[in-house]
């Protein structure tokens, strides 16, 4: 994308009308072009900053920590602690909240890997991507001991099914 195209699309981005590849491409240009970046107001500079929070290399030992957490989750489940938890969750309000959380979690896990369109995703990359989503989702208090957390096969299948369901405007 060049500066002229960026200028033409900027209002649509700031008005929340762009999505997917177009939004990503414009944000990437704003982050890389000092002239376009400086034309943004203080509040709108965040548009450009968010793309810089995309390609961070996983920190050392991320996979080991992720696996350790998974093993701990499995051990807890074997010892029956989760049985008690699931019984506690069988209240309508909690079930509704859990359903909403599961939907958002699936959406985040499904859409996340497609942000880097055009790159071939190895299984290891997919796991890193999933792992990278987890802190954010936990921070949002959307996942608490969900069984989905360990269902890598299902998550991989989701990411192999092609483009995300939303359209690019």
């Amino acid at each position, binding site marked *: 994308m060049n500066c002229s195209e960026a200028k033409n699309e900027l209002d649509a981005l700031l*008005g*929340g*009308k*762009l*999505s*997917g590849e177009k*939004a*990503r491409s414009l*944000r990437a240009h704003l982050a890389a072009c000092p002239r376009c970046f400086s034309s943004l107001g*203080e*509040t*709108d*500079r*965040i*548009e450009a*900053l*968010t793309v*810089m*929070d995309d*390609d*961070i*290399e996983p920190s050392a030992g991320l996979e080991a920590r992720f696996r350790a957490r998974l093993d701990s989750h499995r051990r807890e489940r074997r010892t029956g602690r989760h049985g008690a938890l699931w019984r506690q969750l069988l209240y309508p309000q909690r079930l509704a909240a859990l359903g909403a959380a599961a939907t*958002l979690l699936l*959406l*985040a896990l499904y*859409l*996340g890997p497609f*942000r*880097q369109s055009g*790159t071939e995703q190895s299984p290891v*990359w997919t796991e890193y991507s999933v792992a990278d989503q987890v802190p*954010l989702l936990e*921070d*949002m*208090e959307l996942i608490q001991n969900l069984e989905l957390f360990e269902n890598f096969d299902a998550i991989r299948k989701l990411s192999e099914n092609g483009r995300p369901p*939303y359209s690019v*405007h």
Partner: protein
Amino acid sequence: MEDTRALPADLLLERRAVAQALRQALAQLPEKQRIAFILNKYQELSYAEVAEVMNISEKAVKSLIHRAKETMAVRLQSLLPEFVT
């Protein structure tokens, strides 16, 4: 995915600093603002799509994201003054 190991060390450090500051500012937002912001800026959904996911109006999404951006801009002024000001 870009190979970040190929980036110059100073640029890589800069990106890490931006990412860390963003997440720090993001963590302090109210939940609805945080969800709307993440869906729009990180998952790249339009406001209409965010509205559908969160089951609220597009106008409400616009308001949530506007407030989130204002709050984050203030917080980022101290965390990343060279980028925001």
